[in-house]
């Protein structure tokens, strides 16, 4: 088993910031990342063979991203790229897989910056090829420079929709429509906090202007209720929704598309934190379980930190500030008091974080998920994509007395496929809550079990040997 002073998992904005901050304070740092090149989803770098032309890849955060990657190369940080942290075998000890081999790595301090993924909302036709998450299209266009068709619709709710719509237009796609379930305009008016953070707000308005200039319809208070097509999506039905996001009868509009992307916010990738035994809490404003942490980003387990999206959706700015705080505090705990500059850095990060959090809270309020969205799935809509389990099957299992999420999982097999329940558990809990007439927060999700990522069986020999 290998050991290091500070081990950081994830090389996105939070993980990079944490690794750099801890190293600058003097700690020995190992940074573990799944990708070939650091950056995460937000600062994702072009693949080998591709060349940019020096123009910004990451919009207004270009300078921050470049600075972080420069700092990373300047510090003595060991980067374990193409490496999957798939299990937690003991206190602060990870099982790591590289291709078909594996080894264990113990950190005296462990910082989990494992990010988030998009929260899928099931609706009839959502499993058809040509229906993507919005993040998928952002990645395909920005990093792989490919469009999955010409006529593309962007739908769902949240800030990401506007970013993706602008990206698609830049790439030459025909934006069929931008469909937003929330009543965004009144949300902006109701949230004076937003006006204090004028920079990101202006950016959002700029994206919206770009969409309008392109002549694409912008439909607020609307949602995609159905995607149809034989082998792939061809037609999308959109309906007006009320304040609870329930479709209003008689408001159907059909659109012909080559592709559809849908996004309803994010779910934290908290699998490793939960496996470690970090306490999680249901955060109603995020509709998600988030590891409990203090102002130092330390979890309920001493010496284990979280930073970035895994600690609650907030965007790259918050992720970088949280990463910095976690990195500095972790190093401090190991006796690296750091130079006076480090203390100033910590203070600045805390101050910056407070402002960013006000903006985040206002955004979460504006785009808060409403319960009607869970009614889009009909009885025969697939909820668990991997095992092809429908809403009706999950409802029946609950009605027949499977009252814990674990029982429903064992009975229906929903959540047992290769995505390991990432894309269905939240929807299953919603269905169970509806059937049993309780709040969704009262139904605990099934336990997380290793491996939390699919790795070759050969690579798991260390788990089998224990």
């Amino acid at each position, binding site marked *: 088993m290998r050991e290091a002073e500070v081990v950081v998992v994830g090389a996105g904005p939070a993980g990079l910031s944490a690794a750099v901050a801890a190293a600058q304070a003097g700690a020995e740092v190992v940074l573990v990342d*799944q990708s070939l090149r650091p950056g995460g*989803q937000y600062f994702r770098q*072009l*693949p*080998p*063979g*591709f*060349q*940019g*032309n*020096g*123009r*910004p*890849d990451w919009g207004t955060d270009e300078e921050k991203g470049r600075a972080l990657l420069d700092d990373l190369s300047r510090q003595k940080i060991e980067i374990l790229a193409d490496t999957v942290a798939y299990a937690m075998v003991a206190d602060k000890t990870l099982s790591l897989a590289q291709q078909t081999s594996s080894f264990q790595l113990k950190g005296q301090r462990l910082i989990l910056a494992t990010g988030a*993924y*998009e929260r899928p909302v099931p609706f009839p036709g959502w*499993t*058809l*090829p*040509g*229906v*993507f*998450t919005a*993040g*998928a*299209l952002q*990645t*395909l*266009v920005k990093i*792989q*420079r*490919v*469009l*999955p*068709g*010409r006529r593309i619709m962007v739908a769902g709710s949240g800030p990401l929709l506007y970013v993706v719509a602008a990206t698609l237009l*830049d*790439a*030459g796609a025909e934006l069929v429509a931008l469909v937003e379930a929330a009543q965004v305009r009144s949300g902006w008016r109701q949230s004076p906090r937003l006006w204090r953070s004028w920079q990101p707000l202006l950016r959002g308005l700029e994206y919206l202007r770009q969409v309008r200039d392109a002549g694409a319809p912008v439909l607020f208070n609307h949602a995609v209720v159905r995607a149809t097509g034989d*082998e*792939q999506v061809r037609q999308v039905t959109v309906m007006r929704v009320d304040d609870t996001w329930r479709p209003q009868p008689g408001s159907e509009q059909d659109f012909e598309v*080559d*592709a559809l992307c849908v996004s309803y916010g994010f779910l934290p990738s908290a699998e490793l934190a939960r496996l470690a035994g970090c306490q999680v809490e249901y955060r109603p404003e995020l509709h998600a379980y988030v590891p409990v942490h203090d102002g130092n980003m330390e979890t309920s387990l001493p010496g284990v930190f979280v930073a970035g999206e895994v600690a609650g959706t907030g965007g790259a700015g918050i992720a970088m500030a949280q990463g910095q705080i976690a990195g500095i505090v972790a190093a401090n705990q190991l006796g690296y008091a750091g130079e006076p500059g480090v203390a100033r850095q910590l203070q600045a990060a805390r101050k910056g974080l407070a402002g960013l959090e006000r903006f985040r809270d206002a955004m979460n309020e504006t785009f808060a998920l409403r319960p009607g969205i869970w009614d889009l799935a009909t009885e025969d809509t697939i909820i668990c*994509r*991997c*095992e*092809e389990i429908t809403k009706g099957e999950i409802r029946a299992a609950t009605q027949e007395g499977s009252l814990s999420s674990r029982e429903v999982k064992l*009975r229906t*097999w929903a959540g047992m*496929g*290769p*995505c390991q329940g*990432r*894309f269905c558990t939240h929807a299953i809990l919603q269905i169970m809550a509806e059937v049993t007439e309780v709040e969704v927060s009262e139904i605990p999700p099934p336990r997380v079990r290793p491996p939390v990522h*699919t790795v070759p069986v050969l690579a798991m020999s260390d788990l089998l040997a224990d």
Partner: protein
Amino acid sequence: MRVSSDKLQPPAQRGLPVQILVDGSQLTAYEGETIATALLAQDRQVLRYTKEGRPRGVFCAIGLCHECRMIVNGQPNVRACLTLVEPGMQVQTLDERSVSAASPGSEGMKRRTD
């Protein structure tokens, strides 16, 4: 379709051409592209058929949903969204209808409690 370098902001150049074989047909891809990109560039969306015969394609594009699994150089369940093309790579549609016919055990277990 591939985004032409003059259209996309910022523009970027692809790597060198790479020939791969998809379900027996030659396909030109470029170094740095994933299998998913090479297929989406040809407007091909369907990468897999489920046990119940439903078509599936790329969904999350970051390796988490596992919907884009294909057979690559004879190895099943390879994620097309993460796997970069290599010269001579042989890619096949994963048809799980034939897989479940060969090993009906899982279906039997699943239905046991119904």
